[in-house]
């Protein structure tokens, strides 16, 4: 009795690459859409949402002004609306709140002083991780990457020839 072998995929390696490319494209696309800048002018809801999401609700725990219904958050949104209608820039509006309530009212940590570590530490950590991974892989390749012996080459050549012969034989 012979067991029918499943047909091998035509281009297994190329298919993998296509999947990887597709995944990268999807991820990049999602990031590009999500990270598109909010409007900088006008008095649209989108701009109000973006600004209120950058302010902490001081009467709540872990909520932004945009997500809260606390009385103070409502007042913050009213003030954002008023200043947007006055034509203030985003920086001017956020500075207005920071000048009254301190920098801690901002959801985005400052890019100066201790707060800048929040921005820099992940970059450094990623760079260090990449370096360590690279070194580890290089070390492994160094250990296992010795040139094959003539016996190894002969073994692989014979195995490949057997496989070719088996594929060419009539079924």
């Amino acid at each position, binding site marked *: 009795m012979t067991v029918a072998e499943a047909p091998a995929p035509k281009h297994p390696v190329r298919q993998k690459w296509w999947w990887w490319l597709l995944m990268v494209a999807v991820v990049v696309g999602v990031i590009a859409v999500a990270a598109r800048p909010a409007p900088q002018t006008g008095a649209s809801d989108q701009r109000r949402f973006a600004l209120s999401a950058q302010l902490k609700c*001081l*009467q709540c725990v872990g909520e932004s002004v945009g997500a809260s219904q606390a*009385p*103070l958050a*409502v*007042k*913050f949104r*009213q*003030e954002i609306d*008023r200043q947007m209608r006055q034509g203030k820039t985003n920086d001017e509006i956020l*500075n*207005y*709140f*920071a*000048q*009254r*309530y*301190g*920098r*801690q*009212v901002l959801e985005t940590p*400052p*890019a*100066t*002083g*201790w707060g*800048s*570590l929040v921005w*820099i530490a992940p970059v*450094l950590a990623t*760079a*260090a991780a990449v*370096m*360590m991974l690279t*070194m580890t892989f*290089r*070390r492994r390749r*160094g250990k296992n990457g010795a040139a094959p012996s003539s016996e190894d080459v002969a073994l692989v050549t014979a195995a490949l020839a057997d496989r070719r012969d088996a594929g060419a034989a009539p079924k």
Partner: protein
Amino acid sequence: MKRRAPLVAAIVGVALVSLVVLFATAPSGKDADTSQSVVGKLAPQLTGTTADGSKVDLDDYRGKWVVVNFFATWCPPCVKEHPELVKFSQRDGQIAQVVSVAFDDPASKIKEFFAERGGDWPVLIDDTTASSLDYAVVKLPESFLIDPQGNVAQKLEGGITAAELDKIITSKS
């Protein structure tokens, strides 16, 4: 190759420590002057309309101590402190003035509240958002004691008593 790992780790470590020192000692930028406290500064402008339609301006009380009280009729600690403000207003009316700012209440509620619980000082009701934010109010009730020169002498968070206000005014006079 084996000797490189500690070397790289040392370089990254030194870079990290240097950055920590660098950024910790760097100037804090344009927001360095931001402060959430109005205490010790000239009191922010406070103008508005009362429940009976008259205009109020904090500057009109220059020369007297002023208690600017942010409150709401729906706030239990505000309700609890109200009799103390009534007592303070009646006893120290010659040297001090109470001005309340309704955080989020319609005129009808304010009138009803004062009719029930007493007190005849001005209460600002219309568009108090800017005033509340100028004084950086967070949780009600909050009061600000303004000295006769118009500077914020003290911020009082939570309910206050007439005795407490007297003590502060005496100590700062």
